[in-house]
């Protein structure tokens, strides 16, 4: 398959995951804020941080508030990281690989795009928000399912999956990082805040139900972090993601460099799991994971994509 097409499939996979997680995160976060007592340190800033948008937001708007943040994250066309733009780039990558993506897949993303153009600007400041965000999640799942069910699982599909997994690994680690940082910053961490927060974190990656089934205890910080970073069965958990990523890469020609990098991840995770959850070392450990994920991206680019 063409290097250029491989690259676009990879980005389609990344944007698909980005659209889904952004929609979930915002949706859960808004609900979570409703559950928290006033004056908690948890605020819009944390949501911006999870989505790596806090610097850009502060540069433009200064102090975050509900309306501004939601508009910025969901519907701001000038914010490269907004959900609206992520849907646009997802569609653009599918549009430019239409020769290999099943046409139902194109129609599916096209409908998601039309819906997001119509509804997201309204959703940013209205009651229809949850419905619209949930439609975004459904649209992504529909596309995933369509491709899984109707596209040959050859190289093109593997690049799509690889994009999925890398984006997901990046997002899951960032969610854990920001949650731990928030607790560490809290004046009086308190059990109630910790509980609510970690429940919210689990929900934001749709992990809460699966967590309850497998952990069978009330939600604690330690268990939640363990589950999110190392569970081998839950699709959004880093453990599962790493394994799937390695498996997808191994199906491609000339994969040695990339799979070697992926093989370093499990050991890094187990070191992190030994750490004290409130320590700066945890943040450093996760930083290390994120750097490694960046290296894996670099290696994929170097091995398979078109050189400028």
């Amino acid at each position: 398959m063409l290097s250029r097409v491989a690259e676009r499939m990879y980005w389609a996979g990344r944007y698909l995951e980005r659209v889904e997680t952004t929609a979930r995160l915002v949706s859960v976060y808004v609900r979570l804020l409703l559950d928290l007592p006033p004056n908690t340190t948890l605020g819009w800033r944390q949501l911006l941080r999870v989505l790596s948008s806090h610097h850009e937001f502060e540069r433009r708007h200064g102090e975050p508030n509900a309306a501004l943040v939601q508009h910025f994250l969901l519907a701001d066309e000038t914010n490269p990281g907004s959900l609206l733009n992520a849907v646009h780039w997802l569609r653009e990558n599918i549009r430019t690989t239409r020769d290999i993506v099943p046409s139902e897949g194109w129609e599916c993303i096209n409908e998601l795009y039309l819906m997001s153009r119509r509804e997201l600007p309204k959703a940013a400041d209205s009651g229809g928000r949850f419905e619209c965000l949930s439609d975004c999640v459904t649209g992504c799942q529909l596309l995933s399912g369509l491709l899984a069910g109707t596209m040959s699982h050859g190289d093109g599909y593997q690049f799509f999956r690889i994009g999925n997994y890398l984006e997901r690994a990046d997002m899951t680690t960032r969610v854990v990082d920001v949650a731990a940082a928030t607790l560490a910053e809290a004046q009086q961490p308190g059990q109630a805040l910790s509980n609510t927060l970690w429940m919210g974190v689990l929900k934001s990656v749709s992990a809460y139900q699966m967590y309850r089934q497998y952990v069978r205890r009330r939600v604690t910080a330690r268990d939640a972090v363990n589950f999110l970073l190392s569970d081998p069965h839950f699709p959004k958990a880093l453990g599962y993601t790493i394994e799937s990523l390695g498996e997808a890469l191994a199906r491609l020609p000339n994969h040695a460099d990339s799979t070697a990098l992926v093989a370093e991840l499990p050991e890094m995770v187990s070191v992190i799991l030994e750490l004290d959850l409130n320590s700066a070392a945890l943040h450093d450990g996760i930083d290390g994971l994120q750097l490694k994920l960046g290296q894996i991206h670099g290696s994929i680019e170097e091995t398979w994509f078109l050189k400028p």
Partner: protein
Amino acid sequence: MPNWRKYDSQGFYDELITPERTPRPGAETIAAAFAQLDPAGLNARQQAAERAVLEMGITFTVYSEGQNIDRSWPFDIIPRIIPAQEWAAIDRGLQQRLTALNCFIDDVYHDQRIINDGVVPADTVLSSPDYLQQCRNVSPKYGVWAHICGTDLVRDRDGIAYVLEDNLRVPSGVSYMLENRAVTKRVFPSLFADLEVATVDSYPSDLFDTLAELSPRPGDDPEVVVLTPGIYNSAYFEHAYLAQLMGAELVEGGDLLVDSDGYLKMRTIDGLAQVDTVYRRINDAFLDPDEFNSDSVLGVAGIMQCWREGKVALANAPGAGVADDKVIYTYVPDMIRYYLQQEPLLPNVPTWRCGEADALKYVLEHLAELVVKPANESGGYGMLVGPHATRAEVDAFKDVIKANPRNYIAQPTLALSTVPTICDGAIEPRHVDLRPFILQGDNTRVTAGGLTRVALRKGSLVVNSSQGGGSKDTWIVGNADASNR
């Protein structure tokens, strides 16, 4: 029939309805189906079709204020009907025409017999900017240079179909022909049940077969690619669509290179892979920066030499555009007689060559009644429609012609035929043309019908989608052999 009683094509030939307000042969079912729909019913159907177009993502790109905007493809739901028997004659005429055109192209790049025998003036051929010295004495397979041709047909007031032009460079529109059919099937499934409508769906496999026939490498599994100028090209939708339906790779210039062994390769995730046939959708001028436009980033350096050595097939072949020239067009009937010893089955539109003194004089005197076109432009650019131009525009255009008469031809303003079209809940006549697509390799194949383009503005004759045109599904209805039974 209520909707037809007040339908008035104002003296133009209407494709569906006679001047007596009755359906033409083959159009009875359609006429009956639309006769009973009230404005709300018509609008509902039209909106269903527009929704389908939107959801299927059928778009074309327009450039506006420095931005690329994907617009929905404008589509009208009333199909244009052509009886199969009539179509069979047009089909034969199109095959005859493309065969002669290919003889001509092959001849002018080899022995130039048609010039030496005085049928076509040397100057007319050799001064054409589309005559490429780089193509002299190259011999593409089967002697065929133009493998994909889109020929524009128009029907005049007299009901006769004339050839308006042959598009031999990179004709576009065929994907819309296919998508129009898909939309009609979605909106009017029941109509198909009552009629024998010829299928158009075989086009992608016919195209693939034609391209595969050209492969220089023996074997059953040629690597066919579609070369697009890129994702911002106005026809990118079509390039991707055809590649998808053929199962061919869609490549950009940057994906290709001529390797040290002289063969054309594409960059894949597994290294370089040899390419056999390139269906190129970029113009000659951008094909090879080594030989043409040196700053082109769309093409591939060295691809011309690779093609000359017979290591790759290019469709259409470089230099085929020499027969796409509007002055050369006027000689096509002579070519048919010269190469095939046959009388042309399809007439040309009467045309004055401004390069000839008598004709130039006539054209300058009658400019306000004529349509004047430059020899080498497409898409309706750079032309003058006399009856729709102001006095000043006509006078200004005289100087333009006089500066370079060879570059212009003039034709009478045609009274293009009309087809009933939905306009704000009413059915009104709108002018149409027709672009069938002809494929030629070892075999020749013609689409059943083609792309009907419609000028959606009242009274307008301009059918280009970039200038307010839309399109319709085209149905070849009935059995071509009916008369023999």
